[in-house]
C-alpha cells in the first residue's frame, strides 16, 4: 500500500487536573512512512510521551482526554476504533518501548512469560509454541534462552530493556514507538541498546518513532526529525534538513546548545528560560517569551505551518510577510 503508515493530524490532548487543565498536546500533526524512523525531539514536558500514548490508545483517563484529532494508521483512524479492536492492534501491529526498564517489567512474573503473553494474546498458538517463540525472541536480543524463567530483578538495566525490546518485537509489529529507550541506561549500555534496536528494526522491517531528547540518538538512527515544543511540532524535515539547515529559532537554539562534538551523547540544554507550564501556555507562539527573534505578531497569533520541499516550520519569520529569510 502507498501513502504513509501513520498520519497524525490536529491531535489535541489535555489532562484535567485539580490545578487546572494541562494542554499537553495542541493540534499536533506529523506523518511517518513505511520502513522509516522518525525522531520526535523535545524537552521534558513537551508532550512526547502523551503523543505516543495517544497512538497506543493508552492516555490515562482520567485525567487525560483526547480532545480532537485523527490518527490514521494503515487507513484506520485509531481514535475512532472501539477498545476491542484497539486491543488487537496494541502489542501486535503497534508496540511501545518504555523509558525506564527498571519499572516497566512486572517484578513477580518471569521475563519469558512477559514475552510469551504478548504472542499468546495475538496469535493462535499453543502454550508450548508461544514459549518456544518467546525463547527465540530472547536469543534475538542476545539473552540466553536459558534465562527464560528468571525474574526481572535478576537482570541488569540494559538487559531488562532488551527484554522489553523482545516483548515489543514479538508479534512483528509494523510500528514501534520507543519512548526515550536509552535515557535511563548507563552511557556505555546506551550505545549497545541503540545498536541492537537499529539492527532489529532493519531485520524486522518495522517503522519506528524514536522519542528522545538526545540529538546524538537522533543523528544515529533517524531518517526524519520532528521537533516538539509545548505540544506542537515546530519544525520537521529530513535528518539533513533539520540538522544542517534548521529554521526555527528553537531548533537552532537546540543545536547551539550541543556543548561539544567530542562529548558524544549530548542532552538538550536549550536556550534561556524554561519550557512554559502547559497549565498556562503563553498566547501566540508558545516559544515567544524565550525567542531571540520575537516579533510583535508572535505574541498574539499562533503561526501556521509552512512547508518547502518536505521541510516544515511553524514560525512567523517564514510566513508571508514575516520577518523574511532565516539567515
Amino acid at each position, binding site marked *: 500500500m502507498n501513502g504513509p503508515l501513520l498520519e497524525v493530524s490536529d491531535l489535541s490532548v489535555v489532562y484535567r487536573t485539580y490545578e487546572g487543565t494541562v494542554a499537553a498536546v495542541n493540534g499536533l500533526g506529523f506523518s511517518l512512512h513505511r520502513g522509516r524512523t522518525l525522531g520526535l525531539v523535545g524537552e521534558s514536558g513537551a508532550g512526547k510521551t502523551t503523543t505516543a500514548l495517544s497512538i*497506543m490508545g*493508552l492516555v*490515562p483517563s482520567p485525567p487525560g482526554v483526547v480532545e480532537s484529532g485523527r490518527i490514521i494508521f494503515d487507513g484506520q483512524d485509531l481514535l475512532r476504533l472501539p477498545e476491542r479492536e*484497539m*486491543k*488487537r*492492534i*496494541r*502489542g*501486535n501491529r503497534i*508496540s*511501545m518501548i*518504555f523509558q*525506564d526498564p527498571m*519499572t*516497566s*517489567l*512486572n*517484578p*513477580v*512474573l518471569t521475563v519469558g512469560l512477559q514475552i510469551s*503473553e*504478548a504472542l*499468546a*494474546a*495475538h496469535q493462535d498458538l499453543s502454550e508450548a509454541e508461544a514459549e518456544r517463540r518467546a525463547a527465540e525472541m530472547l536469543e534475538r536480543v542476545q539473552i540466553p534462552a536459558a534465562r527464560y524463567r528468571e*525474574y526481572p*530483578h*535478576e537482570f541488569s538495566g540494559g538487559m531488562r530493556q532488551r527484554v*522489553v525490546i523482545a*516483548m515489543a518485537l514479538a508479534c512483528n509489529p509494523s510500528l514501534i514507538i520507543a519512548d526515550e529507550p536509552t535515557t535511563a541506561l548507563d552511557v556505555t549500555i546506551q550505545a549497545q541498546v541503540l545498536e541492537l534496536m537499529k539492527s532489529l528494526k532493519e531485520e524486522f522491517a518495522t517503522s519506528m518513532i524514536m522519542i528522545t531528547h538526545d540529538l546524538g540518538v537522533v543523528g544515529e538512527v533517524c531518517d526524519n526529525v520532528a521537533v516538539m515544543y509545548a505540544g506542537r511540532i515546530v519544525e520537521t524535515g529530513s535528518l539533513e534538513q533539520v540538522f544542517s539547515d534548521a529554521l526555527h529559532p528553537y531548533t537552532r537554539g537546540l543545536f547551539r546548545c550541543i556543548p561539544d562534538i567530542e562529548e558524544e551523547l549530548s542532552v538538550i540544554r536549550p536556550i534561556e528560560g524554561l519550557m512554559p507550564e502547559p497549565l498556562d501556555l503563553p498566547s501566540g507562539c508558545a516559544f515567544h517569551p524565550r525567542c531571540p527573534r520575537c516579533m510583535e505578531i508572535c505574541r498574539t497569533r499562533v503561526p501556521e505551518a509552512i512547508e518547502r520541499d518536505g521541510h516544515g516550520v511553524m514560525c512567523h519569520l517564514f510566513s508571508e510577510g514575516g520577518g523574511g529569510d532565516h539567515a
Partner: protein
Amino acid sequence: MLRYFLRRLLLLIPVLLGVSVVIFSIVHLAPGDPAEVMLGPSATQEDIANLREQLGLNRPLYVQYGAFLGNALRGDLGRSMRSNAPVVEEIMDRFPATLTLAVLGMAFAIGIGLPLGLLAALKQNTWIDALCSFVALAGFSIPNFWIALMLMLLFSIYIPILPSSGIDSWKNLVMPTIVLGVQTMAVIARMTRSSMLEVIRQDYVRTARAKGISDRLVLTRHILSNVMIPVVTIAGLYFGHSLGGVVVTETVFSIPGLGRLIVDAIRSHDYPVVQGGVLFFALCVGVVNLLVDMLYAALDPRIKAQYRAAR
C-alpha cells in the same frame, strides 16, 4: 527453600523457650495458691501443706521450671489440677473448635476484605469507595466484644435466627466467625485498597496494557499478583492477633475451645493447663507466621532470592 524452612523451624525453639519462661513466671508469681483453690474453703492448713508438697510447689522455682521444660520436651505438659486429665489431651479436645473458628474467621476476613478493598480502589473517590472505607474503619475501631453483643441482640433476640451459644450446628459459628474476623477483614480491606491504588499506576501495568492482553489478564496476572504481597503480610500478622480474639469470642459465645479452656484454667489457678495452653498458642502463631513467610516468598521472587542468598 527447604533449608530456609528448616532453619526457620529451628528458630521457633528459642521463641518457644522464651514464651515458656515468661508464662511460667507469670503463673507462679501471680498471687493465689492452687492448693487452696483446689481444696476449697473448708480445707485445713495441714491438707493444704500436704497437697503443696504433693504437687511439688515447695521446690525452688527453677527446679519446677526445669521439670516442666523436661516434660514438655517429651510432649508431656502435666496433668490438669481440676480434672486430673493430661493437659495435652485437654488441649487436643479443645483445639478443633478453635482451629475451625480461626480458619473461618480468616476466610471471612479475606473473603470480604479483599473484594471490598478491590471494589473501593476500582471505584476510587465515589460513594462506593466511601462506603467501603466506612465499613473498614468501623470494623477496625469497634471493639469486638461490643460487636458480639450487638450481633447477639440482633440475631438471637430481635430476629431470632441464630443461636447465641454452643456449637451444635453451622449456625452457631456464623456470629463468632464475624466477630473474630471483622478486624482482620477491615485491615485487609484497607491494605488491599491502598496496595491496589499503588499497583494500578505502576509502569509495568501500562506495559501489560500496551501488549494488548485482555483486561482480565491485566487484573489477575499483573495487578492482583502484586497487590497480594502486602496483603498476605498483613493478613499473616493479624492472624496471630486474631487468635487473641479467640479468647473473647469463645467466652462470649460459650464455645468450648482453647481460649475458654485457658480462661477457665486461669480462674481456677490450674497452672499446668494455663502454661500448656499458652505454650501451644505460641506454637500455633509461630507455625502460622512461618507458613505466611513461605507464602510471601512464593508470591514475590525477590524475597525468594534473598532467602536463597542468605542460606
